[in-house]
């Protein structure tokens, strides 16, 4: 009897094992997926293809098969993998609806849109995909009791991805004016609903940080959706800003710098209003001022780009400020403040110009340094490093004067430039003390000393003598490098 029971139990166990091991438990698929072993998930899915439908956890297994295929598509960009992903996710939903499967199905369909050649078919599929994703997101929001102040991390990730695919569609559907309206409305729906998070409601500092970043993104998304009254321009600017955030001034993230610049450039190509143009000139100028590389040629090139864009932006702002003295009308909603924008442009202007000047100087390209003088002399505003730049111009002109000693015309020209530039630098530091006797600071004394030296060298001894009487004593004790 005992033998028979053992025999029966053994057989039953075999049946059980056969049943359980045939397709593997859904947790096996999930664990592999969570460990990033997407190919193994897919291999398992393919191996058990015929039996998956009979598994009680089929909807979950199909979901992970679909998600793994999507990850592989993101790595390899093979459209067949995307098609497979869509197939698996459709099956998952057919067995049992889940927000995650539905959301990812919408995401996969969005990525597959460009394979559709017929415009009507594509637009219809696009709307369906948008609705799949938005419905899933709304359902998840309902499951979180429509919480507005704190969202789960899962929601934050979904919304980030949803935002990104919508923006990608904005770029792709540029010629489809009707669809652009829908995409603009959809982006604002996200910004409106989910921009109300309160970072302080996060459970810990990490969550609070995530919520803060997310809130800033949503606030900007809303604002930029109106930029230049054109969603395409607005989204190019928005993505340019996001890519700039990823650039940490190292070679590792230089790609983000280039992409950011590309996005701003695309926005600038399409811009219609003056104000938006000035904003974009400012963005490009600021981005270029952040650029850092060991490649000096690149540095010079980007400083030049940044400087010319800031210059253009400031010219626009000058026109706008003249025209708008009596008018507060905005060209588009959420316009940047004129004063703040002008200050931003001025800062970027100075930063790029000084950088450009410095690298020309390092390369001993003194003529190029001197050629920048008009941009430093006639600005009517100051920036950090302006005095340094003026002194670099003066020094370069001094060197050029020495090189052209035999040519009186050239010599006199460089002499004038040197004296004028060093005089501007001196007056600029003097201005900081507003008429009071300057203390013997290192910066003041260095510039004073250089200026006086140039005056003496070029025969302006009376002026040099006069300055010496006033400042020599206070600077005598200061060590100037």
């Amino acid at each position, binding site marked *: 009897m005992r033998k028979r029971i053992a025999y029966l139990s053994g*057989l*039953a166990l075999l049946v059980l094992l056969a049943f*359980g091991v045939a397709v593997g438990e859904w947790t096996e698929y999930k664990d592999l997926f969570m460990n990033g072993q997407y190919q193994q998930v897919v291999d398992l899915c393919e191996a058990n293809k015929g039996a998956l439908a009979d*598994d009680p956890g089929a909807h979950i297994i199909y979901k992970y098969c679909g998600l793994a295929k999507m990850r592989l598509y993101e790595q390899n960009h093979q459209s067949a993998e995307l098609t497979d992903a869509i197939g698996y996710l459709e099956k998952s939903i057919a067995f049992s609806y889940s927000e995650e499967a539905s959301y990812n199905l919408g995401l996969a369909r969005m990525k597959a849109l460009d394979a559709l050649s017929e415009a009507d078919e594509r637009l219809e599929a696009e709307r369906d995909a948008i*609705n799949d994703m938005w419905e899933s997101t709304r359902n998840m929001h309902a*499951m*979180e009791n429509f919480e507005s102040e704190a969202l789960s991390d899962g929601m934050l990730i979904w919304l980030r991805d949803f935002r990104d695919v919508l923006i990608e569609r904005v770029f792709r559907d540029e010629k489809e*004016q009707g669809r652009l309206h829908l995409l603009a409305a959809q982006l604002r729906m996200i910004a409106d*609903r989910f921009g109300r998070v309160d970072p302080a409601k996060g459970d810990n500092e990490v969550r609070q940080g995530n919520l803060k970043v997310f809130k800033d993104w949503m606030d900007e998304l809303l604002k930029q959706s109106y930029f230049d009254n054109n969603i395409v321009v607005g989204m190019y600017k928005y993505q340019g800003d996001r890519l700039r955030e990823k650039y940490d001034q190292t070679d590792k993230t230089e790609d983000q710098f280039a992409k950011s610049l590309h996005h701003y450039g695309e926005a600038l190509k399409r811009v219609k209003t003056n104000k938006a143009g000035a904003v974009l000139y400012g963005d490009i100028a600021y981005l270029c001022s952040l650029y850092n590389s060991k490649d000096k040629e690149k540095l010079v090139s980007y400083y030049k780009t940044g400087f010319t864009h800031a210059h253009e932006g400031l010219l626009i702002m000058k026109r706008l400020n003249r025209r708008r003295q009596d008018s507060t009308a905005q060209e588009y909603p959420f316009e940047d403040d004129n004063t703040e924008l002008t200050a931003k442009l001025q800062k970027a202007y100075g930063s790029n110009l000084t950088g450009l000047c410095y690298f020309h100087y390092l390369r001993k390209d003194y003529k190029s340094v001197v050629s920048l003088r008009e941009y430093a002399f006639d600005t009517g505003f100051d920036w950090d490093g302006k005095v340094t730049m003026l002194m670099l111009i003066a020094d370069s002109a001094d060197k050029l004067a020495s090189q052209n000693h035999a040519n009186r015309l050239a010599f006199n020209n460089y002499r004038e430039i040197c004296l004028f530039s060093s005089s501007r630098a001196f007056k600029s530091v003097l201005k900081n003390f507003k008429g009071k006797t300057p203390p013997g600071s290192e910066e003041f004394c260095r510039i004073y000393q250089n200026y006086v030296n140039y005056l003496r060298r070029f025969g302006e001894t009376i002026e040099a003598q006069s300055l010496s009487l006033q400042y020599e004593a206070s600077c005598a004790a200061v060590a100037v490098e």
Partner: protein
Amino acid sequence: MAMKTARTILLILSIGLLLATAYAWAQDEGGESAEPAPEAAAAPAENAFPQLLNLNLEWVNSDLTRLVEELRLAKTPWEKRDLIEQVEYLIYKHVEYPLVFKQAEVSDQRDLERIGTTSDVVDAGSANPLAPLIAEAFALYGIAKGYEGYASAANDQIDRAKKIYPPVEDLTVKLDNFKDRQTIKTWITESMGNWASTNAVRVTVIGKSVNQQSVDKLTKSNLSFAAVDHDVSAYYLAVAQADFLRGLRRYIVTEDRLTTRRPNDFQFYLPPGKYALKTDVSTRVPVEFEVSSDPAKNIFIVESLEEAVTMYPRPVVKKENEN
């Protein structure tokens, strides 16, 4: 002996099946409960209803406003069409379907259980706290149709809103840039200029014995309206086609989609004149029908006809004492 062997095999199989079922059940239980998507999500509180429904409607109205905001910026009718279709999708999905109709299709049962339904709102009128939100949604739909250029459809939707919540025009909605609020009345008044320019009249269609298979076979590419002996813009015909197909798919009472409140009529709008309803799936169509300037006379019956549908005027039933 053979009998004994057979009994043993049967016993083994039964035990195996039992164990397998138990195993599968355990898997299923574990699978469902241990698989949050995508992160552990909070279940709605037991007393969340109707607060969730209320919030859902608030958000839907916010979404509708964003669509209408873009609609007023759209320049061409086709641009507007793209937005109107989305408005109609939201209205059906979140307002008409789960709220007005008592019974949901199985695929939407989860939404229904999670968010709830108040099919009594229509009857309860303004006494129901959800009535203003539902009325607002219909009013926004009306305003959207107004911007599209369909005065008659706009008025129909606003009348529908008023029946649910009479002071609907006093409600305020968020307008451009999420900044300003404006009453629905102001919005309607402002856009009256657009509405007055249209002459499309309501055509009511009543479903009768419509076969689901016939409906499923009809698509934008095989069903169309055409004007007979007069010119009508392609846009009017395209909108009528879309309304007709949507109406058929959503409102026709079929055996597997029986509901207690689902109306079996729907509307589309066309300028007065003679029209042909064409389908490629049957040789027995096109059918011709005439749209009168009086919407009360534009009531038609739609019926399955082999693999297509046919449409004819509703017979006028005279009372006994009438001549």
